[in-house]
């Protein structure tokens, strides 16, 4: 990483810390900037977890509102992103535990994804089939395994950020990601995903 880039990132971090400070002092506009910065990522994270857009909207909204009213409890404003993901993850897991999503027949979905792939010549349909297949495989994982993979591989959080978000040691993040990927591999058909290109 170049020194200039490090400096630029530090500046971004600083401005984010300043925003967090202002928001914690009750500045809604400052919090609005933070919401703009993160709502899309949070939404996609939650959506990958619950596989339901309306519900993902609700959980994302609730997480961001909850974060605003808990900002004073955030001891290190530099960890705002991890902290936000932690809130969203906890809300999502709570929801999954309490409400129970309508049971998805994963095997059925896997079968459908195979059929889709074979029956449709269109790229978009291929993409849909591939996405459906990966999601169906992800659904076979335990929620915490799924969350850690979504954070790492979809949302691009660093191990340190994941460790902060999940409140687990760095080494645990490393091993959980390894085993979660290994398990997911068992459910994935790489021919569907890569179509012979990997």
């Amino acid at each position, binding site marked *: 990483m170049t020194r200039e880039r490090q400096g630029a990132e530090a500046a971004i971090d600083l401005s984010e810390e300043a925003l967090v400070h202002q928001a914690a002092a009750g500045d*809604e506009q400052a919090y609005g900037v933070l919401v703009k910065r993160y709502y899309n990522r949070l939404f996609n994270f939650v959506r990958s977890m619950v596989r339901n857009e309306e519900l993902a909207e609700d959980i994302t909204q609730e997480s961001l509102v909850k974060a605003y009213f808990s900002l004073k409890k955030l001891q290190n404003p530099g960890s705002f992103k991890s902290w936000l993901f932690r809130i969203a993850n906890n809300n999502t897991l709570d929801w999954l535990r309490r409400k129970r999503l309508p049971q998805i027949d994963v095997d059925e979905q896997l079968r459908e994804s195979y059929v889709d792939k074979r029956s449709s010549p269109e790229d978009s349909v291929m993409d849909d089939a591939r996405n459906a297949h*990966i999601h169906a495989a992800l659904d076979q994982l335990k929620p915490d395994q799924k969350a850690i993979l979504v954070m790492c591989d979809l949302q691009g959080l660093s191990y340190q950020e994941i460790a902060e978000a999940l409140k687990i040691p760095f080494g645990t993040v490393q*091993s959980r990601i390894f085993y979660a990927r290994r398990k997911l591999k068992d459910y994935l058909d790489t021919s569907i995903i890569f179509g012979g290109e990997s």
Partner: protein
Amino acid sequence: MGRREELVELAAMLDGELDDGRAEQLYARIKADPELMAEFEAQRQVKLALGRLSEVEAPGYIHARVMGEIGARRGQVAAWRWRTAAAFVGGFAICLLLVGGFLYMGQRPAANRPGNLLLGSGEYYSQPSLGREALGREAVPPEPVYGGELGELALPEDVDERTADFLRFAYRAHGYQGMLNSAEALRPDLPAAILVLEGHEMTNGNIILARDEGER
């Protein structure tokens, strides 16, 4: 380093989380060990597959919804704080009034307490219910100590002991002359009396009279 640690580090290496020195060492090990290589490849494929999942653009109204909800809840919180503060102040004021009232009552002469009745002469009589209570229950102490500065009250012999106790009590509470004046105003046909009200009606003769010849 054990096999397990080595395997687990494959994920960290793939994610760029190992320092350069350790990554080079592990890379050399991967090239030399087919099992490690297969595991690394499996990890890579899964990461690649997840990376291919298309993300969607979150609806823009989420931002507006979040900010609107924050504004609404802030309003609720502010209203709740005001209500709580108002309830606290109100409760405190009521407590102050009650305490003040009790203190005031404690300092008033016995005759002025509620439950006594002000007659036209400005004197007080106990209400019938109080008198009956005092006569019938524990309101009159078993060992009366009334008397003192006012001197002993002379009672007719036919007054029973319980009534006598009460009369002495009334005598102390109301003062002798005040009681006589009020008794006369109430029953001008009687020469002298200490009134002890027993019934509910003060003026219909529902009273016990005790002659006090000595004081009169």
